[in-house]
């Protein structure tokens, strides 16, 4: 197992190099001039050129790339072209809301979706199954921002139970933290509940037709034991896969939710950086997201061995 993990980590290195090269190249090919964005409307061409020199943007592209790789290897993610803030500092500032939203969404999604999916599979074709499937279609059809606005209208402006916007870290108290994260979690988890419930249902239905399920029933195991002890465990592999993909997407891909609820997370940071052509920030974040994807895929692959002892690396 350890050898497998080490091999996968080593295999991640060329992936990261390719991601670094591709994102660097794409940024340099995309229209947009960070110097013009920094200087504004009335800068002269000479002033823009001087700013580019200060920012190192006048150097040949390959030199800029090598300089950036050198910085990365020494643990330096660079400095924001606009604010002059170290990128690492910006990432640390924005990580908290993203991690909080990601974890809370996945936890809620798992806790709600898996039982729903199992129940739907158990009652395949019946009213419960149809209701769960209809709700899951609604869940990933309704845009997250629509759900978000409805929640704000009813539970914030209407009932006054939750704030409209903003993020309170745990350091400001558990209750303020929970209040600030609840509505974004409810809005976002609707999509993941829908997704995970459907995958759970499908996987469990496949497994329920297996011989060992018939054997378990024949041996006198009650239905709960059959579902939870045998069916779900054997159906876990695709479920875990989709949860892993969900976590990876949540880390950097929830900019709409972050915008509506004004959560200063990494999703917003990357969009803002792209619109402002803040190259060091974009490059660092894309690399970070790539690393997160690699690590999550690794964790998911390792977790297969827990759910299916037949899988060995």
């Amino acid at each position, binding site marked *: 197992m350890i050898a497998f993990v080490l091999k996968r980590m080593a295999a991640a290195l060329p992936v990261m190099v390719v991601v670094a090269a591709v994102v660097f190249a794409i940024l340099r090919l995309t*229209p*947009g*001039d960070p110097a*013009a*964005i*920094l*200087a*504004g*409307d*009335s*800068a*002269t*061409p000479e*002033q*823009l050129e*001087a*700013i580019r*020199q*200060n920012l190192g943007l006048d150097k040949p592209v390959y030199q800029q790339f090598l300089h950036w790789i050198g910085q990365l290897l020494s643990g330096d993610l660079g400095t*924001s072209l*606009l*604010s*002059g803030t170290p990128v690492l500092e*910006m990432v*640390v*500032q*924005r*990580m*908290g*809301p993203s*991690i*909080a939203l990601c*974890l809370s969404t996945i936890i809620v999604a798992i806790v709600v979706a898996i039982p729903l999916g199992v129940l739907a599979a158990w009652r395949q074709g019946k009213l419960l199954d149809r209701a769960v499937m209809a709700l899951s279609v609604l869940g990933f059809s309704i845009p997250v921002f629509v759900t978000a*606005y409805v929640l*704000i209208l009813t539970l*914030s*402006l209407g009932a*006054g139970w939750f*704030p*409209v*916007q*903003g993020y*309170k*870290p*745990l*350091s*400001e108290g558990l209750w303020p*933290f929970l209040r600030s994260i609840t509505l974004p979690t409810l809005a976002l988890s609707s999509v993941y509940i829908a997704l995970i419930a459907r995958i759970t249902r499908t996987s469990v239905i496949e497994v329920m037709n297996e011989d060992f399920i018939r054997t378990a029933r024949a041996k006198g195991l009650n239905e709960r034991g059959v579902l939870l002890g045998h069916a779900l465990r054997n159906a876990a592999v695709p479920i875990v896969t989709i949860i892993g993909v969900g976590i990876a997407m949540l880390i950097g891909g929830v900019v709409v939710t972050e*915008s*509506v*609820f*004004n959560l*200063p997370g990494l999703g*917003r*940071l990357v969009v*803002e950086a792209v*619109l*402002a*052509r803040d190259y060091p920030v974009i490059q660092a974040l894309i690399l970070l997201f790539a690393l997160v994807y690699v690590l999550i895929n690794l964790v998911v692959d390792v977790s297969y061995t*827990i759910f299916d002892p037949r899988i060995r690396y």
Partner: protein
Amino acid sequence: MSKAMSSFTHAALAASLLACGLVGSVHAQAKTTVNAVMHAPLRVLDPIITTAHITRNHGYMVYDTLLATDKDNQIRPQMLQDWKASADGRTYTFKLRAGLKWHDGGAVTAEDCVASIKRWATQDKMGQLMTSEMADMKVVDVSTFTITMKEASDLAVRALAKPSGVAPFMMPKRIAETPPTQAITTAIGSGPFKFVAAEFKPGVQVVYEKNTDYVPRSESASGLAGGKKVLVDRVKWIATPDAMTSVNALVNGEIDYLEQLPFDLEPIVRANKDIAIKVLDPQGYQTVMRMNHLHAPFNNKKIREAAMYAVGQEPVLQAMIGNKQYFKPCAALFGCDSAYASQEGADVTIKANPKKAQELLKEAGYDGTPVVILQPTDTPSVNTQPVVIGQALRAAGFKVEMQAMDWQTVVTRRANQALPKEGGWNIFATNNVMAEASDPLRAFGVAANGKGAWFGWPDVPEIERLRIEFSRTGEEAKRKQLAGQIQKLVIAEGVLLPMGQYYVPAAYRNSISGALEAPVPVFWNVQKK
């Protein structure tokens, strides 16, 4: 689930929760904090390197200026005790007020001011003009410096009183000596607020606290001038990307002040009796169309004229703003409410005349060269004008090619002097803050010195001659006449098409009072109950 898995899960959960908490911040809540949502998030801290208005607003919080304009646009001393002109009108002596201090405790000196002016003047167009007309600038003593012009002119005074564009903020000499093309990342000024660096999160929030060492002038605040008395402990600017969320937060009492209330959401706020809506910048904004004089078809004066006749102000303003309370057609290039308001060219600029445009196109022999219009899709204040312009031009017989892109691509592309089909452009639209465009010197869109001009590169030497004459003229009546002549030429040559004036309301809860009418949102004089 195995015990190992359970322990692992617990450990991972604990670590993650710790991360959520560790990256938060704890600070003691001050007595009064004004929570404000401004029009953009603050990232760049250097108000000299950039013309971004949010950075200018930040500048007014932490820095001060030598001179300032009051609500009647009169120039008043701010950091200065006074200024005197020599008998020949060439030398101005500026004397600082006593007791001015930087936020780090050092005294403000004339040397600091001279260094700050030099840095500002290399970046700002009015400052560049001042430098070209200036013979000398020198420190006389610790609180006095002089500026001597080549000819009798009050240009230095008017330049140093400039409220926007790049405002001439004063900084400590050691900071002002930073090359003007290198951004400063600190914020040590002598202004009424201090920047709280520990709580700054670029693009998320910025916090200012009252500068208890600030000595405001004795007169009452008026516009950007007068006594800047801070009546709250802290001001926090919160970046909120979603306009609906900002309005909801205001309605819910989570924020106190919204700098720019979106026009389409104004009815929601108007119905709320706990919120006041007010236009705090009475000068407002102007939306303009700019043509590229370098390439066809607008390298032809008659075709430029046809385009000017084709576009009317009312449809543009209706599409942009919608609410008649907040816009008005205006022919005046320098603003209908300004000292240099003129009606020259009104027959061209106010109402669309597609028939006249068609006649001009025919006379000019227009060959159907497509007009490439840059359409930014991500910035609400500039994404409607191109669509209306495009339709108006089509109705007049132009062939139009609309190219959609984000605003930053527009910013890059409009600097490109290549052919439109090779990455250049023919038309883009933008908006001016009237405080930056209220006379022929401030309005950089009026400059017509060819490749040295603003994007579009009009080359009309007579306009430049008149602008220089304006800068050297001390008589107001003569300036008004010159401004009218400049406007006439600008319209006739198709340098810039004014498409009307509009005003953006602010909204704030009734717990907030004292918000000043000024071309820049300011937080001195503001109280919170």
